[in-house]
């Protein structure tokens, strides 16, 4: 498989040296986070999907550990340990193995053991500046590896959030749709439900209880639930409290009294998610879309435009940049700009590089506040096979 022949090992090493030279040349400090990581932090951050592909094990003392499935979280931990606070500005780069389970041992483009060469850019509040710097460093590294033909697919969660914020709807619907963004099928279903029968979330709740639930009156609602549980011999077990259960049921009842989401709004959201075009054209298309819907998300659109301009000024070939509103839906921890570099020979399923903004991730290593963080990595085995034309 990968690097199991001495020649391929040498080629990967030589390639990695060049990439790291580019990274350090751009001001990123080379670090080597531990390969073996505490499992806990990953399991809480990455979600079950990736967790299912992480090699987790228990050591001789009973500690739950894992082979790192990527290097971003380990670099965040390293940063936190070094500074004791997360918002310190720093730039790191690395090259090293990461491990992900693949059915039947994986294949050449999806090996279970692969090397990531990446950069992380922490603490810079000028987000579009950090995003531009990271992308240009990655583009520079690809250029030095003689990769000419590629496309950069990008997305922007800031735009999506701004769109939902601008639409008039109950806050809990907004929260639900934002978190459902990652699950396209569930998202579509929820959107349809909010149009057709928002009250259906209370379906099946006992009538005797429903009559006693008063949205806005938590005390009365909690009492009603306690009485109901007592009358039916139901014990309260587990970590969820009566007040959490009451809050949820109050929301369900309130859903039934709220006006349904207008079909035109659902259509606008769907149309937004359908936007997929070269980056410049996409910006214009989004502006048109919002104008005809009479919605103002000019703040987020300006950010988009400014970032694009900055990238053009930095010498990135904007013609290679393609915006897709849906892009990023399988990458749960990103919070803003995201991108993936794909080569025509490998296709969209096997990007050779990718990255994005993950301002919330530092919380998982101990920070109590969001910290601006932007990172990207190169899948070095894939890069090598593209460079060598081995696909």
């Amino acid at each position, binding site marked *: 498989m990968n690097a199991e022949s001495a020649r391929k090992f040498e080629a990967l090493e030589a390639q990695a040296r060049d990439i790291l030279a580019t990274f350090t040349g751009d001001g990123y400090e080379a670090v080597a986070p531990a390969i073996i990581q505490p499992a806990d932090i990953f399991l809480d951050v990455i979600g*079950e*999907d990736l967790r*299912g592909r992480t090699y987790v094990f228990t050591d001789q003392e009973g500690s739950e550990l894992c082979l790192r499935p990527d290097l971003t979280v380990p670099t965040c931990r390293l940063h936190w340990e070094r500074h004791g606070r997360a918002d310190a500005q720093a730039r790191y780069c690395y090259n090293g193995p990461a491990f992900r389970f693949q*059915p039947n041992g994986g294949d050449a483009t999806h090996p279970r053991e692969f090397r990531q060469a990446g950069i992380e850019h922490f603490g810079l509040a000028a987000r579009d500046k950090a995003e531009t710097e990271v992308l240009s460093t990655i583009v520079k590294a690809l250029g030095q590896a003689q990769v000419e033909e590629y496309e950069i697919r990008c997305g922007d969660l800031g735009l999506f959030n701004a769109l939902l914020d601008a639409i008039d709807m109950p806050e809990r619907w907004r929260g639900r749709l934002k978190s*459902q963004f990652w*699950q396209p099928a569930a*998202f579509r279903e929820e959107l349809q439900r909010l149009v057709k029968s928002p009250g259906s979330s209370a379906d099946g709740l006992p009538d005797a209880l429903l009559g006693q639930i008063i949205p806005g009156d938590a005390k009365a609602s909690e009492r009603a639930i306690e009485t109901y549980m007592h009358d039916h011999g139901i014990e*309260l077990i*587990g970590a969820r409290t009566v007040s959490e259960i009451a809050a949820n049921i109050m929301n369900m009842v309130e859903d039934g009294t709220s006006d349904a989401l207008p079909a035109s709004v659902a259509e606008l959201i769907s149309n937004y998610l359908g936007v997929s075009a070269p980056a410049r054209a996409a910006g214009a298309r989004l502006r048109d879309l919002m104008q005809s819907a009479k919605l103002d998300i000019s703040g987020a659109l300006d950010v988009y435009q400014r970032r694009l301009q900055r990238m053009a000024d930095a010498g990135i070939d904007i013609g290679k940049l393609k915006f897709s509103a849906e892009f990023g839906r399988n990458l749960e921890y990103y919070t803003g700009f995201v991108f993936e570099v794909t080569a025509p020979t490998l296709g969209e399923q096997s990007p050779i590089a990718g990255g994005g903004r993950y301002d919330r991730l530092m919380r998982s290593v101990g920070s109590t506040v969001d910290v601006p963080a932007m990172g990207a990595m190169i899948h070095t085995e894939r890069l090598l096979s593209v460079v060598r034309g081995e696909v």
Partner: protein
Amino acid sequence: MANLIFAIPSKGRLMEATIEILAAGGMEVRKTGSERGYRGEIVGTDNVEIAFISASEIANALRIGRIHLGVTGEDLVREEISDAEGRVKFLKELGFGHADVVVGVPKCWIDVRRMEDLDEVSMAFRRKNQRRMRVATKYTNLTRRHFACHGISDYRIVESLGATEGTPAAGTSELIVDITSSGATLKANGLKMIDGGTMLKSQANLIESKTAPWTPEIRAVQNEILKRLKI
């Protein structure tokens, strides 16, 4: 010539029922060597080797092709083999070993009546507790697939190899995925089933490994067995 290797669960009701079904087809299973041995034969047949191994190990042995045929629960096969259809062939449901793999939540979660309701609850739980709600189960793969299917992502699996249904009350999980035949154990532990929470209605199956070393001779032996079992 090589033998066909036929795995039978090594103990309990699954073993007894399998031996009965073979006997009904005129195939008497006899242990060879010591009484506690893990090998056996079908009386009067040369080319079949019986292996007594645990039901979950049978699933794994089918996956890697160490045995040709085996009897085990569909739940174990779906759990242990990520691409079950590519690796094994379900030949026949045997009518015993019934067990449903279900989601069990605390009865006091009055606001949760169906799979979809879990989504809202999981998000609120994470906001309040700064961690994901925990699902205790030994069916990690089935659980991941089922939850993904219903768009639920804010949870975390904790592996539980025994007494799973007691973990919510014990405070080591928020909800569970486990097998049940009547729901009585769930009930006794203050849990309930929910709509859409049944992941699999499982029973014992006769299963063929697609990756085992099949030769024309071994195929012929298999055909004879299937004929006697009227499959």
